[in-house]
């Protein structure tokens, strides 16, 4: 098999050499517990403090506003449930989110509904954007939190975060954003963008799996999610995932160095890939073209189902993902594609290709060579395509 063409960087990424080498000492000789008083403990503590500075610097925060967690999902759970439980004491039991959030957010909100909280799920338009005016209209005196993702994980649409943040600030409602997909691809400044809490994850930016962070603006206090020792300023207990935290710090620094130049390169690759695939008849781009992650291509091919497409791509050495039901373990296609108004049949035939730092022009060439042929092969045996072809 030729080299793997990895086009699923929104699922996870390869650990970079720079991250791995930063981590190595902390996986080997530097095994001290950061809470210990002796030298190797203090060195471990210093390494975590350094990583905290690296993360903070990348998003315009102060180091003491960064809390390391186990993953993006934990950060989302903590921000949402921690806010809800804290502010319920002041009678605030209403949360605003959108219909097309990541499941870490949606299922956290649903869990709170079972506890008696009320949740408003804002719609998104057909291009995949939340309207800030809808946020404003939905805010009530008892609203505790607005949580809207920075960029959608399936269709890559970047939300009007600064404007939503401004509205929340004006209305004195806390604002959280899941920025797991945006981090490293978009320059984010939590101060300028009026963000109170922000979730991020290591493994999407070439750090290892199993580490994330939550930015919590100074002055905001959430109920703790993990009770135990005094780690993370007594707000997130548990012995720190030392090496991974060091890796996350390094990855944040790497991602934000020359971010604009890297994004410009990826945007050119993305556009070539997107336009090449859209040249196939009866295809559509899911999500708007403007305000879109430089890494994301999401396309529906009428008349075929996504899982078959992924299996063929895998056999051809291309890794990608789909919004098809068959790949989600349920029988429903992606809630994101349904939210932007795609009919079920078309949502089943969607393909997400997500680019990353290591993708090259040759990868795009290979994808543009393989995918049209696979689409044609699957359409040739599809009764749905048979009808589409007859009618056009």
């Amino acid at each position, binding site marked *: 098999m030729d080299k793997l063409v990895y086009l699923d960087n929104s699922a996870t990424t390869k650990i970079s050499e720079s991250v791995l080498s930063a981590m190595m000492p902390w996986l080997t000789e530097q095994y001290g517990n950061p809470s210990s008083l002796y030298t190797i403990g203090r060195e471990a503590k210093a390494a975590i403090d350094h990583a905290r500075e690296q993360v903070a610097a990348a998003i315009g925060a102060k180091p003491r506003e960064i809390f390391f967690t186990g993953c993006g999902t934990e950060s989302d759970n903590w921000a949402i449930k921690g806010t809800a439980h804290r502010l319920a004491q002041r009678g605030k039991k209403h949360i605003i989110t959108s219909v097309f959030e990541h499941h870490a957010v949606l299922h956290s909100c649903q869990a709170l509904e079972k506890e008696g909280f009320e949740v408003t799920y804002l719609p998104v338009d057909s291009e995949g954007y939340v309207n800030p005016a809808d946020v404003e209209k939905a805010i009530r005196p008892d609203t505790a939190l607005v949580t809207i993702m920075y960029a959608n994980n399936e269709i890559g649409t970047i939300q009007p975060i600064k404007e939503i943040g401004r509205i929340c600030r004006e209305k004195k409602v806390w604002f959280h954003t899941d920025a797991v997909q945006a981090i490293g691809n978009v320059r984010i400044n939590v101060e300028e963008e009026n963000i109170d809490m922000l979730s991020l994850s290591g493994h999407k930016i070439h750090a290892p799996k199993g580490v994330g962070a939550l930015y919590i603006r100074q002055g905001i206090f959430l109920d703790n999610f993990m009770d135990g020792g005094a780690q993370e300023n007594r707000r997130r207990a548990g012995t720190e995932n030392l090496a991974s935290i060091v890796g996350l710090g390094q990855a944040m620094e790497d991602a934000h160095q020359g971010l604009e130049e890297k994004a410009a390169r990826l945007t050119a690759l993305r556009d070539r890939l997107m336009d090449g695939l859209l040249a196939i008849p009866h295809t559509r781009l899911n999500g708007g073209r403007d305000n879109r992650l430089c890494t994301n291509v999401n396309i529906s091919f009428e008349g075929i189902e996504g899982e078959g497409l992924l299996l063929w791509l895998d056999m051809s050495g291309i890794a990608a993902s789909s919004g098809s039901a068959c790949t989600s373990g349920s029988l429903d296609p992606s809630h994101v594609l349904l939210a932007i108004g795609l009919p079920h049949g078309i949502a089943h035939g969607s393909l997400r290709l997500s680019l990353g730092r290591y993708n090259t022009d040759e990868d795009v060439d290979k994808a543009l060579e393989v995918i049209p042929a696979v689409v044609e092969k699957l359409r*040739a045996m599809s009764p749905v395509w048979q009808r589409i072809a007859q009618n056009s």
Partner: protein
Amino acid sequence: MYSAKVMDHFANPRNVGELADANGIGEVGNEKCGDIMKIYLKVENEVITDVKFMTFGCGAAIATSSMATELIKGKSLSEALTLTNQAVVEALDGLPPVKIHCSVLAEQAIKTAIADYYTRQGIDPTPIVGELKSDCHDCDCH
């Protein structure tokens, strides 16, 4: 997640295509659930002399269609009617639990095509074929 046999029938599907002189055609499933199977039969003297399929669906849907057509080719109609979804699953060396509905769909597609054959012959298919489920009845996507 798929057996080697499933992958073989997915990658090299047998009997794929349309059958111009089919005298029994059955289509089941719907786009909403993501699976549609269409089976074409050529029946001569109560024997299935040729069979083809067209499928919109996942890897398992394509593989079960392919295997099911292999299992009924050259068989009499009464033999073909005894084909169960379980037999298709076994012939494929198993399917993941979430994909069992694909094999049910394949069984139903064959029964629907046979019923269509009888209807075209002026014979009421219900006493022979039984009640048909034209949809993916066990699917919870509504």
